[in-house]
């Protein structure tokens, strides 16, 4: 272990940007013009550990003919193990250790590709004469697991990985098409990134000052603004940015209601009060949905415009789904929905859909799209799968898609995905 400063604070700067196929729901959404470059499968250069282990083996055996066996008992794929086997044999040959059959060999080298919590561990057991086997070993860090997307379906939800982070991500917003820029809201800081030379480069990190501990299931909302860059809503805290870069941010204690819709559009103007020490909205809505200014405490809402009114879907803390139309509060009952929903104006089908998280007890999660032709919910997409629980789902800045934050069950990292819907197959 080195003695360098270890500073594993929140919003760690150890970050990775991955991307996959991007499907734009609207040509007008210029902010989604993200450059995509990373394939799903990463080629790994094993040459260094191969050479290292081959060198250690050769130093034990000296030159000669040896029976070399390679076994894989790690998470490496058979093709990767085969690639490593070939590399090792080539490196051994270079060092004078020639592969031979057991009866013609001076000894046997059994190589095991194993792994521990943090590392791949490659072990060579060298049997020569009747002496005890010599053991040589190299270890190398294991990469994190990368999950892949799935197939397409009639109305299809797509996800594009925008960002991963060891620390909790609360919301993400993309802005400015050229150069592409992104704001990532974390628990302790707001980070601004710019897409340069094929990757996201951090431009600024703005600390979020807060006098009280955050609630355990922390939630936060990032909204782009027309007269300044963004506002941030957090439990008991409100932050407003300055207008131009380099940005400053002013955070102060506030119980102001959070906007329920994207601030970049004029479609939704309602706001709701957030319970400052919990993880839900109190049910008080400002200025109100029609004549309704209060409803049950809820986690999330989604709005679907009708010809003469807007229908609001409330995902309540009581586990019920409520429908508010400005006059009545109807309970749709306990559906198999998760706590997070968000409306999306895709232009497909009836124009507006509601994205809904799943409610299984398993490590993964799903998002499905629903429409409400009348007052019943109709599924219009197959579930889009996530490798971890979704911790936030917010309509994006212009309302055309959504931002889903999930915590990968395998890596523990938080992942921010841009969700969009495309029509047809």
């Amino acid at each position, binding site marked *: *272990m080195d*003695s*360098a*400063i*270890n*500073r*594993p*604070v*929140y919003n760690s700067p150890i970050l990775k940007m991955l991307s996959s196929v991007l499907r734009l729901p609207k040509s007008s959404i210029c902010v989604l013009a993200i450059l995509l470059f990373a394939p799903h499968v990463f080629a790994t250069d094993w040459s260094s550990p191969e050479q290292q282990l081959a060198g250690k083996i050769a130093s034990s055996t000296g030159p000669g003919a040896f029976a070399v066996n390679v076994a894989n008992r*790690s998470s490496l794929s058979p093709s990767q193990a085969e690639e490593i086997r070939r590399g090792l044999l080539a490196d051994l040959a270079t060092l004078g250790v020639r592969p031979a059959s057991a009866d013609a060999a001076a000894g046997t080298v059994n190589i095991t590709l*194993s*792994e*521990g*919590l*943090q*590392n791949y*561990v490659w*072990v060579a057991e060298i049997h020569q004469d009747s002496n005890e086997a010599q*053991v040589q*070993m*190299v*270890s190398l860090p294991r990469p994190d*697991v990368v*999950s*892949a997307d799935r197939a397409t379906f009639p109305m299809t939800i797509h996800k594009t990985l925008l960002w991963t982070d060891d620390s909790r991500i609360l919301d993400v917003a993309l802005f400015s098409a050229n150069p592409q820029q992104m704001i990532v809201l974390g628990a302790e800081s707001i980070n601004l990134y710019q897409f340069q030379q094929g990757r996201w480069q951090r431009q600024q990190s703005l600390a979020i000052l807060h006098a*009280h*501990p*955050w*609630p*355990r*299931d*922390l939630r936060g909302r990032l909204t782009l603004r027309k007269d300044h860059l963004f506002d941030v809503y957090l439990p008991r805290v409100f932050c407003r940015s300055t207008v131009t870069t380099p940005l400053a941010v002013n955070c102060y204690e506030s119980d102001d209601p959070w906007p329920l819709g994207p601030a970049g559009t004029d479609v939704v103007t309602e706001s709701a009060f957030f319970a400052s*020490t*919990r993880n839900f909205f109190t049910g008080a809505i400002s200025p109100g949905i029609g004549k309704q200014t209060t409803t049950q405490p809820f*986690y999330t809402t989604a709005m679907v415009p009708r010809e003469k009114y807007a229908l609001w879907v409330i*995902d309540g*803390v009581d*586990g019920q789904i409520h429908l508010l139309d400005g006059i009545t509060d109807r309970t749709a009952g306990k559906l*198999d*929905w*998760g*706590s*997070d929903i968000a409306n999306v104006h895709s232009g497909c089908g009836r124009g507006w859909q509601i994205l809904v*998280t*799943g*409610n*299984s*007890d*398993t*490590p*993964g*999660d*799903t998002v499905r799209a629903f429409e409400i032709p009348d007052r019943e919910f109709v599924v219009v997409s197959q579930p889009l*799968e996530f*490798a971890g*629980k*979704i911790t936030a789902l917010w309509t994006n800045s212009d309302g055309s898609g959504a931002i889903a934050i999930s915590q990968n*069950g*395998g890596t*523990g990292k938080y992942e921010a995905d841009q969700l969009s819907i495309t029509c047809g197959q």
Partner: protein
Amino acid sequence: MRRTSFPLLVASSLILAVLAGAETRPRYGGTLHVALRAAPASLEPSDQGAVDVVSLIYDTLITVDNRGQSQPGLATSWQADPGNQRWRFLLRPGVTFSDGKPLTADSVAASLRIANASWKVFAESGAVVVERGSPAPYLPAELALPLNSIVKRDGGKEVGTGPFVVSQWVPSKELILAPREDYWDGRPFVDSIEIDLGKSFRDQAVALDLGKAQLIEIAPEQARRAGIESRNVTKSAPAELMALVCARPSGSAQEQQLRDAFAFSIDRESLNKVVLQGGGDPAGGLLPNWMTGYEFLFPSQMNLTRAREIRAEVPHADVWTLGFDPNDSVESVVAERVVLNAGEAGLRVQLASGNTADMRLVRIPLASLEVHVALNELAAALGLPQPNYGSDSMDDVYIAEKTLLQSHQVIPLLHSPSEWAVAGGIRNWTATLGGKWRLPDVWVYP
């Protein structure tokens, strides 16, 4: 250990989704009822029986994640001087004890001094400085051990900074905890945790069936049946070491040979199948293979032929006595089978109670997911010398562990998981790979 593949994850999600039917965002409120076998007489972090509850009341400066890496706890950053003997830890601001008093460097230093009499610990410019007599490169992970929980002792009462505060405490019988509204990492979701202590596995199972407990421990031999009975059973990685420990060092070469013969005679595969219902792993090493990647190098297969050969080379063998806990059903079965195995190799072993046996059967939980600290703690628990590491590499951990095994004082048998059954209304129940709870994140669905 192979990673779970994503398709498998998806498949299991689809299957279990049918069984689920609730919202997924955490709910505040409710009481979590827990039953435990442990019956700690105190809430001191040094009380081995209190390990499961200590983290609910106290925090540590550092935590260790599931990859064995140190993460911030009460300390937000740390730095070692060259040589790793002197470390400086910066404290998280704004943290308070449950009595409302602020966490200070002085209070942290006082707590660590009590837990580690040989350490020099003091406050310096608001930070905590730890000075050790020799290089301590793994000190951050050591500070994550429950023993190093930060405790303020105030008039004979222990106070912590942890997520819960004690509402009621009847030593060895009952512990009731309330969440701290001002906990620095967020108030826990439940309104109360009620823990019944000193409950046998059987009593715990009955309590679960009667709805009196929502979280219980499962005996290894009951785990499979519990799964068949559709109980929601979860388990840690096989982290607990079961081993035979000799009371005395092996004095002579012949004594070493006999111990080797004993080790070769033991049918660990059968022990795993019968005692752990196949849920554990036969152990040849002290640390499990999923943690180190090299444990397979230490033989764990039964080799009766070799055992008999070695035994035949020694003209005389004394009768050994084997101590075990007769109240522990797992230990009883293991001890009996080990004695039978030894007999097949021509060794005479008799079961014994008390502490005077030649060797005893022990079960030692994995103390840390950091490999060096885990091995150090195992060595200490087994009464073996502290390992020496030439460098930070896995090669040196392997050599250190091999050296411990070559002392012939310990014969590893099995690595076994901890298992729990959880009632249907409990959400987000998780434990670390090593089997430590994360109860602050649990919520109760009515």
